């Protein structure tokens, strides 16, 4: 049977078909849908873990108990999971363990574009790299076979362009649960104290040596001999771009990118006249091929950053032949960056915080989008959880000068991911920084996933709900306040009071995500409108940056008809789009001329 699946759906399907029964993950674009889809199959267990380190450790436990387990994360998640990763490489596993890393070349939805193939070499773990959905489904099966056969964790590397592309996939019946669960004591293998780790270290070398041999005959490492004047070594999506524009050249298509099949590469290099390596990001294959003493062209003509597309590959290869074409690209088109949604509770928080003249350390989530004009709500964003530690560090470094001047903001899911430890640190070391949890009761940025603060599991079942206030108390944070960020005045007052306090403070700005409210049909029964006879065109409401509010100049194309000026200076009026307005009331709160009023919806 054929289906049209995304890379993520296909990886989930492949795992199910080959008997994987266990998955743990933390949501992260572009990896999130793998776990969401996998969880829907019969007879499997899947969970959201608070972060990637925990997800991997949970999967190591499951694999040691003899099941086939899959830990899923985005590229930067592997940084968080790196600690267990490097040592499970020594111990090996019992049941089967695959770590899916979904990289994000071009940083469509990430803070960096690290090339996680380097982790495979660094941690001495084999890595497979599929190029489309069919391969995603096939390669996850290969990954588990290799894991079991060589007693090793295995990486499966996706990229955004695989995870979020769709293509035709043949479905197969599942083989039933793989592995044989049970308790097996094997302390020599799993207790990594120095004496035993040294013994396992040798096993790692033996294993990688066996895998190098395996790579030579692995059917997904294959030569496609054609016109021998040009040979291209490529893997994953880059292979498909190159194959699309140069179908007549010869290819060495690598399904396994670590370890590399040296003899196969040498044979291919000998059979072609000019050898190219087409790979996105780092010269990962190229450096190793050069180290074999083979002459190759790679990053000297291909970009070392951002994702490729067929045009980039075509032009880079054609450049020498002078056949690359110029294109007329329209300029001056207003950009359309992603924005905080109409009704987003973060808008109220950042509008209030923006009036206090503080340095605001930010974090990873929807609220990061507040950095744009007009809110310009955050001054930094490094990684998950960084806001809390950075605010404390900055506050300490500034001493008295920093008092009342530093705020760290972090989302609810991000706080649970890696904000708890730095908050403990802030309490322990008597910080003067104020930490704000933007609690919108979901993992909004990745598409509404549950987390320990929502009180529901991945499957939507009720579970224990983390109480931020009680947690902060237990960590030693004395001042803990809860505010509604959709009440600007209250939020501003509470922030001011906490900034004035001695010692660490936590403010929980609690209001559900606007999309979550829409999903749960909790839309307000009214919207807001601008009374054009009262609007003075002061633009204060425009300062909220709400997509539902626009400025209409009296002179432009979209000028409102028959508009009367309230003063000679007035240049236009604000207009609210009734379809987009969610009735959050922020604009009504900031308007000083009572020009914004509530209107009941007719459509219920």
């Amino acid at each position, binding site marked *: 049977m054929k289906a049209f699946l995304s890379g993520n759906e296909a990886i989930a399907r492949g795992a199910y078909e080959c008997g994987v029964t266990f998955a743990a993950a933390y949501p992260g674009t572009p990896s999130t849908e793998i776990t969401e889809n996998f969880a829907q199959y019969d007879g499997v267990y899947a969970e959201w873990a608070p972060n990637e380190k925990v997800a991997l450790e949970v999967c190591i436990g499951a694999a040691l108990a003899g099941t086939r387990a899959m830990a899923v994360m985005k590229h930067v998640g592997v940084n968080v999971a790196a600690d267990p990763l490097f040592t499970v490489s020594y111990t090996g596993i019992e049941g089967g363990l695959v770590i899916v890393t979904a990289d994000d070349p071009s940083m469509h939805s990430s803070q960096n574009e690290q090339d996680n193939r380097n982790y495979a070499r660094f941690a001495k773990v084999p890595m497979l790299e599929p190029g489309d959905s069919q391969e995603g489904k096939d390669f996850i099966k290969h990954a588990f076979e290799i894991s079991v056969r060589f007693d090793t964790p295995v990486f499966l590397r996706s990229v955004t362009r695989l995870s979020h592309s*769709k293509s035709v996939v043949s479905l197969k019946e599942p083989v039933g649960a793989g592995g044989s669960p049970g308790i097996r004591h094997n302390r020599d293998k799993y207790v990594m104290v120095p004496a035993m780790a040294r013994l396992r270290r040798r096993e790692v070398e033996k294993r990688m040596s066996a895998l190098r041999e395996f790579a030579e005959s692995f059917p997904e490492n294959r030569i496609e001999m054609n016109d021998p004047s040009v040979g291209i070594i490529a893997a994953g*999506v880059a292979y498909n771009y190159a194959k699309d*524009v140069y179908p007549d050249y010869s290819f060495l298509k690598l399904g396994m990118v670590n370890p590399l099949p040296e003899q196969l590469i040498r044979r291919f290099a000998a059979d072609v006249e000019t050898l190219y390596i087409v790979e996105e990001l780092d010269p990962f294959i190229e450096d190793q091929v050069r180290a074999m003493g083979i002459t190759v062209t790679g990053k000297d003509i291909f970009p070392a950053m951002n994702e490729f597309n067929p045009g980039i590959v*075509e032009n880079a290869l054609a450049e020498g032949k002078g056949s690359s074409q110029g294109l007329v690209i329209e300029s001056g088109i*207003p950009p*359309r960056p992603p924005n905080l949604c109409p009704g987003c509770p973060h808008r109220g928080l950042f509008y209030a915080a923006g009036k206090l003249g503080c340095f605001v350390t930010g974090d990873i989530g929807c609220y990061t989008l507040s950095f744009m004009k007009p809110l310009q709500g955050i001054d930094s964003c490094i990684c998950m959880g960084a806001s809390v530690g950075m605010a404390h560090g900055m506050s300490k470094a500034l001493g008295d000068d920093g008092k009342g001047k530093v705020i760290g903001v972090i989302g609810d899911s991000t706080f649970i991911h890696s904000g708890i430890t730095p908050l403990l640190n802030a309490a322990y070391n008597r910080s003067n920084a104020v930490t704000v949890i933007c609690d919108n009761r979901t993992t909004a940025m990745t598409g509404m996933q549950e987390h320990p603060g929502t009180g529901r599991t991945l499957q939507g079942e009720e579970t224990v709900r983390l109480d931020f206030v009680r947690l902060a108390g237990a960590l030693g944070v004395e001042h803990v306040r809860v505010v509604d960020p959709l009440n600007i005045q209250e939020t501003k007052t509470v922030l001011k009071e906490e900034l004035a306090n001695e010692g660490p403070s936590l403010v929980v700005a609690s209001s559900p995500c606007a999309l979550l409210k829409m999903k749960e049909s909790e839309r307000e029964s009214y919207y807001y409108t601008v009374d054009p006879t009262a609007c003075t065109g002061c633009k204060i409401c425009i300062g909220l940056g709400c997509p539902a509010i626009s400025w209409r100049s009296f002179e432009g194309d979209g000028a409102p008809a028959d508009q009367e000026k309230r003063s000679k200076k007035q240049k236009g009026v604000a207009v609210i789009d009734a379809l987009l307005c969610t009735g959050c009331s922020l604009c009504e709160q900031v308007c000083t001329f009572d020009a914004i009023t509530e209107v009941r919806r007719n459509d219920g």
Partner: protein
Amino acid sequence: MTGDTKSILLVGVGGQGIIRASDILSVALMHAGYDVKKSEVHGMAQRGGCVSSHVRYGQKVYSPLAKEGGVDILLSFEKLETLRYLHYLGDGGTIIINDAEILPPAVNLGEQNYPSGIYERIEAMFSDVISIDAYTVARHEGNIRMANTVMLGVLASRLDISDSVWETVFTESFHGKIAEQNLQAFRHARNA
């Protein structure tokens, strides 16, 4: 590009139903016997960002992305987004434009103007340009949210896919009465 592979690029703004439309289009092409790949970036779409979805079909498709200058049909759900992606269209390509304006943030803030003379700029470069007010048509058909279906209908008038394939795909993609309503709007737009 490999011999017979065709490329359709759907562009617009998050929330316009573009990803849904490209899914329906792709599955219809698959049912019509083609190999199909499609690609877009998710994640930011719900937050008002621009959305583009590449759909490629043929005997055997490698890349899910079309190259710039390699697109056969540009299906644009918003006027200025047409300009943003115009360089993707190949010589002699077709443009189908929803005659709608959705203001970007810089225009909302009064910092920039919505570009003027969009049709003139497009028609100076391409001759096969179709404009349709998909929102109005969809409203007449019973629901403004079917604008993406109307756009698909116009596109389908340029594709060789049988009506029975479309019927199957619409029936699979929507429930009961909504499927019927969408199929009817689709057929009206295609046959207009």
